[in-house]
């Protein structure tokens, strides 16, 4: 009865099964790509927003913060920071600009990144755009 | 085979089920169970196989139908 269970069949199921589900995944990806424009409001991605994202990356913000829940868990979620800060870009800009260079004794503190006003504005625009993505109502509350 | 065809006839009868109601749902679930059990028992040939293998689809069907029943009653 040992050949009730053949290696070639096991292999076929591995290959067939993986291929099947990978194709399914590709199909779902197509569907997702089709329905994303309605959810991410890409028409609002101005050069400013794009530059804001670049600044976000080049200062490694993800190394402490989460953005839509992904990133490090050391500092607050920023996907909804625009909402949390009263839908006010100026508050965000002022917060980033006012970080002390030497930190706060005994506490976590955001580094001082020395961004100029234009850069601060781009970054805030990026965070504003991010807050408008349809995330199926995540996070559960404004605290993120 | 005849039995399968007769359950199929009931399956067709399902079409006019638009009144709803608990007994009908139960009835449908029971037909599901009978039909699927027949597939696994006769078509798949599990009737002549050791209990270990035979029980898996049957238990599966009982759990699935049972939980669907619970879900429908919750509504």
């Amino acid at each position: 009865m040992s050949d009730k269970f053949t290696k070639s069949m096991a292999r076929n199921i591995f290959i067939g099964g993986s291929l099947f589900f990978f194709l399914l995944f590709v199909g779902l990806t197509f569907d997702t790509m089709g329905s994303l424009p309605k959810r991410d409001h890409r028409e609002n991605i101005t050069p400013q927003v794009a530059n804001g994202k670049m600044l976000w990356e080049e200062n490694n913000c993800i190394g402490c913060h989460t953005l839509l829940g992904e990133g490090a868990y050391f500092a607050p979620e920023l996907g909804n920071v625009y909402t949390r800060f009263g839908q006010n870009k100026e508050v965000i800009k002022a917060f980033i600009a006012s970080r002390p260079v030497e930190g706060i004794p005994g506490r976590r503190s955001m580094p001082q990144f020395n961004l100029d006003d234009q850069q601060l504005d781009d970054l805030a625009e990026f965070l504003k755009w991010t807050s408008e993505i349809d995330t199926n109502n995540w996070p559960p509350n404004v605290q993120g | 085979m005849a039995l399968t065809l007769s359950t199929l006839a009931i399956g067709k009868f399902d079409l006019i089920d638009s009144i709803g109601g608990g007994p009908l749902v139960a009835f449908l679930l029971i037909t599901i169970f009978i039909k699927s059990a027949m597939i696994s028992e006769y078509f798949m040939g599990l009737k002549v196989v050791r209990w270990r293998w035979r029980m898996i689809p049957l238990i599966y069907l009982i759990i699935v139908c049972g939980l669907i029943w619970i879900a429908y009653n919750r509504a």
Partner: protein
Amino acid sequence: MSETNLTQNQNREEYPPGDLVIWIFIYAELLVFGVLFLAYAFSRSNNLELFNESQKLVNQEAGALNTLILITSSYFVVRAVAAIREGRAEQCGHWLLATMITGSGFIVVKLYEFSEKFGAGISLSTNTFFTYYLSMTAFHFMHVVLGLIILAAVWFKNRRGGYSQEDHMGVETGASYWHMVDLVWIILFPLVYVIR
């Protein structure tokens, strides 16, 4: 088919027919569908009105027709297995062909149904009911396609004389998978199309 099995009824078989691996796969697939069914049932009980409203839009006739088609084709594949067990490879091929033709019938009806839905502007994201309806039926649809591919492979091998009375595990394996596809549909159809 009950006659062919009568002789074996006394001493139980150690393993189900076909390759054991396919059974592990079948059980796994049943598990996936089972979870989907239950998710559907419980999700429905939370959105009763939405589900009942949307369910009116699905094509019950097409679903019922497909049930008939699948059970018939499942019966054909039973005959195919019975034929090869008696060593009649040619008959086995005919029955396999009949299975595939009926199986393709399912595909045609289903495609018609999908085009009807997409034509009406319904997609995965329309509402929760259609997320379930489309993902479950489409997922099942892909299993039908896969089942047909498996059966076609079996058919080709059979035509080249690959199976005999002694060695026909491939036929049984393909048949078992096809029955699983049928089994799932038998639960899926009443659940999604009819019960409310």
